[in-house]
């Protein structure tokens, strides 16, 4: 099993008038071919910025990738020119955005919006592209696909629009699909359908996927590996079953504790339960562990309030960034 995407020490900062916002500050992860990586975290933790950094879709200025590398299939993305990137986007790596209500151009038919990507990357002629577009719509479960090609986005419901967005994303059979909170803006009833659709498509087209969400339930269902982000950094990373069975980081524990019952379908709609306190200001993050202020175990006489803990591998494939992982904690607290 090869690594399709390797992100190393990615730092994406926003240079604003108020100061430098370290939105992503040293993130490492990789995605295996055909596997799903879930990235979880509260809003503002940098997970979307990470996704947009991979796509190089962040507005520059103010955003800039200050260091790190993103290798896709061995190819360094951070140094590609805009023109070279255009060949990667949509063709090799595609993205599904959070809000289907705004992700589609309201003045163009959805047909046009699918066809343009087919023509761009696959060089199809108009007729073939149109036929393929209809097939794609059909594939993502839109009834009467051929007729609906000439409809405008506002004539579709939110769930249907997200299906269109997904159809656009998979149109050129990309090897990596980044889904950035694909269900957040949708009605509870359609969230599951869209997730299932994504999972099916991933399997069918043998794509790898990065699923970004703030919902542990979503991750539990579809991800092979999970990375938990907090304040611009990954705080815990493990295969999904391992993470859910033996969470190590207090933040992960809190996230999981807020999830009542994994088998309960309603759980997917549950937002993260409130954890007391707020994430730190990313303009001037604390020198110490960024979770320290909210960590119930911090300040127990150790160094974590002064110097930042490193990401360490507790077990094979299970890495965590805390001075107080659960497995080492019993002894102390006991």
């Amino acid at each position, binding site marked *: 099993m090869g690594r399709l995407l390797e992100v190393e020490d990615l730092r994406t900062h926003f240079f604003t008038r108020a100061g430098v916002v370290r939105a992503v500050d040293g993130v490492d992860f990789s995605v295996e071919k055909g596997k799903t990586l879930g990235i979880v975290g509260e809003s503002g933790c940098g997970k979307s910025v990470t996704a947009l950094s991979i796509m190089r879709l962040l507005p520059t200025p103010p955003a800039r990738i200050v260091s790190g590398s993103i290798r896709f299939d061995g190819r360094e993305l951070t140094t590609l020119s805009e023109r070279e990137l255009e060949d990667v986007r*949509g063709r090799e790596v595609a993205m599904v955005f959070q809000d289907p209500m*705004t992700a589609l151009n309201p003045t163009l038919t959805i047909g046009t919006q699918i066809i*343009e*990507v087919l023509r761009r990357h696959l060089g199809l002629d108009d007729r073939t592209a149109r036929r393929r577009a209809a097939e794609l719509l059909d594939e993502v479960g839109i009834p009467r696909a051929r007729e609906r090609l000439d409809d*405008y986005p506002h004539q579709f419901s939110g769930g249907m629009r997200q299906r269109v967005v997904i159809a656009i994303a998979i149109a050129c059979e990309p090897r990596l699909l980044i889904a950035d909170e694909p269900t957040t803006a949708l009605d509870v009833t359609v969230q599951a359908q869209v997730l299932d659709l994504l999972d099916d498509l991933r399997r069918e087209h043998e794509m790898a996927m990065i699923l970004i969400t703030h919902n542990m339930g979503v991750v539990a269902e579809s991800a092979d590996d999970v990375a938990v982000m907090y304040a611009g950094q990954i705080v815990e990373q493990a295969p999904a079953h391992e993470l859910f069975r033996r969470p190590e980081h207090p933040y992960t524990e809190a996230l999981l504790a807020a999830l009542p019952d994994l088998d309960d379908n309603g759980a997917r709609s549950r937002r993260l339960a409130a954890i007391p306190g707020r994430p730190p200001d990313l303009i001037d993050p604390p020198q110490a562990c960024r979770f320290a202020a909210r960590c119930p175990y911090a300040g127990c006489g150790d160094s974590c309030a002064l110097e930042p803990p490193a990401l360490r591998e507790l077990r094979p494939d299970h890495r965590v960034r805390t001075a107080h992982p659960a497995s080492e904690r019993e002894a102390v607290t006991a």
Partner: protein
Amino acid sequence: MAAYIIRRVVWTVPVVLLVIFMTFTLMKQIEGNPFRKTERAVPAAVQANLERKFNLNKPWYVQYAQYVKGVATGDLGPSLVLRDRTVNDIVEEQFPRSIELGLLAFGWAVLLGVPAGVLAAMRPNSRFDYGSMLFSNVGFALPNFLVATLLIYFVSVKWGMLPTSGWTTWQHKILPSFTLGLVPMAYFARLVRGTMLETLQQDYVRTAKAKGLRRRRVLTVHVLRNSLIPVVTAAAPLLGYIITGSFIVENIFAVPGIGRYYVTAVSARDYSVVMGLTVLLSIIVIAANLVVDILYGILDPRTREART
């Protein structure tokens, strides 16, 4: 959409009638004798002959009925002052020149204003952005009589590059149309920059980029098209600007159009010309509104259903 258009068209009829009636009533309120143009008193006999000739001795409702009938059949009546010509003659000969002036002004505005706005939006806070926005703000604020005066002095009188006035060759048309186009130009530049910046931040533009579309296609198909919709909507009010601006520009540049006639006709009490021009201007603006609304519906599919 069709029903909407029909309804709008039907609504213009009472509005036009109302405009005619209002103008007619207003004109009747203005004191002054259209037949006394100089110090010389007009003998009673001459006055009576003139009033008979132009039907001014009839009751007002007869005059109004005659006038409405005339407008309906495309006859705006004779001029009370320019005795060799009817209002139709004046409109037919001089209105095209005003339209040409207006279109050229509009051309400047689109040719320079829109690209300036687009470029400024593509590089916000750049020097070009500041420069073009400064130019746009100043262009918007400077009264056009000053602009006209300065342009004529430097370009024509001092440097001798273009004629000072008149409307015959294309060289004659550059300065007046540019002067008149300055305000719409400034307006377009600001408007396009604003809408374009807004559009650039839209999610669907990010989607388009994420699809790997070439930058040119993203900008032309996804950004520009959507940014220009407000520009189309702004065109109708701008028409008003251009028409009123032409009052001064036509006078200063001796453009034989219709704008400056308006002022002259009001002060000469040339009732038929004033009414004819007012009604004509109103109909044009009303028609322009209609066209803009329809265009808007075509450009932005979201509004189509809402209006049927």
